[in-house]
């Protein structure tokens, strides 16, 4: 990859790559696999705004956060179906109720 060197108005050198850098985000894999109706916590990612309230107030720390901030079920076996995430989610995007 060749680098283009430019000088801006203040005389500082800016190094710029030819090809625009792609955003590199590592995303943890969701451990649970199978029917979503049987999953302990169901997250509706289309409505989620990644505020982090459900992860912060989960009493058993069953939820984790991906690098982009969105929640995922890190420990499905820890969920006790207390529905705290239901009540504290401002976007109705997560439910821990038994289905």
């Amino acid at each position, binding site marked *: 990859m060749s680098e283009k060197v430019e000088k801006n108005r203040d005389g500082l050198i800016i190094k710029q790559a030819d090809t625009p850098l792609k955003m590199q985000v590592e995303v943890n894999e969701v451990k649970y696999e199978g029917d979503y109706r049987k999953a302990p916590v169901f997250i509706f990612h289309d409505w989620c705004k990644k505020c*982090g309230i459900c992860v*912060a107030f989960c009493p058993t720390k069953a939820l984790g956060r991906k690098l982009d901030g969105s929640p995922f079920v890190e420990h499905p076996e820890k969920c006790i179906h207390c529905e705290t995430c239901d*009540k504290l*989610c401002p976007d*109705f995007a997560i439910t821990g*109720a038994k289905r």
Partner: protein
Amino acid sequence: MKKIPQKEIHKYLRHNKKFPHVWCPGCSDGIVLGATIRAIAEIGWEKDDCAMVSGIGCSSRMPVYVDFNTAHTLHGRAIAYATGIKMAKPSLNVCVVTGDGDASAIGGNHLIHACRRNINLTVICINNHIYGMTGGQYSPTTPHDAIATTMPYGNIDNVFDLCKLTIGAGATFVARTTAYHATEMQSIIKAGFEHNGFSFIEVMCACPVIYGKLNKQGDAPQMMRDLRDSYVPLITYEKLNADEKQGQFPRGIFKNEVAPEYSERYAALVESLQSVKGEGDE
């Protein structure tokens, strides 16, 4: 308190409106909306039994998303419109959703006179200490020394205690709760809906994007933790001494009394006048 699953909430939402809603990430308005719908679902009212009225502001976007009889009205005049709805159709359960600036600054007169009349409305005042929608101007409930866009060196005004104001003005149900205590909020809103008279519920909320950023209070979970730690139950608050009361605020039901209700008194007056026979009546 009955557990209401989230699929019950979706029955009350207008799914043809644009979701996710307009509120910022971490805004507590969605929690209040959820608690309000849970309270209504717990009582078991139909959608047509309820009317939700709001003014202008962040919180006043709430009636857009629920499938009740709704009105989105002028800034600060939501209680005036709701009074008209209640007088025209007393069978409706009218609920008013306002913000702190909407209820106490622009609509302050409407609030105190609705309290004085004791008309059967439920006012849910979402207090986030700032005018969020218009960019962070200071409101009557902005704490002393807090920073707002129009008070960049700290607020020099004193704080308006809305619960004490409404108790003084004569409301018969006054309560305060926070967005963190969502289960308690659901039961308090349910008690407010079932109360026959003016009920005022102040919900302390977190505004992480504007108020939290200006005052460096951290992200949304941190502001929720602050709400949890700084609002103590009323019984605990009364036992604290003067030093411990610094930075602590009471929450709970402050006043719950039974008094004659306005629309019932009006109906009784009309009935008594119509029963009197005049000269032309035979």
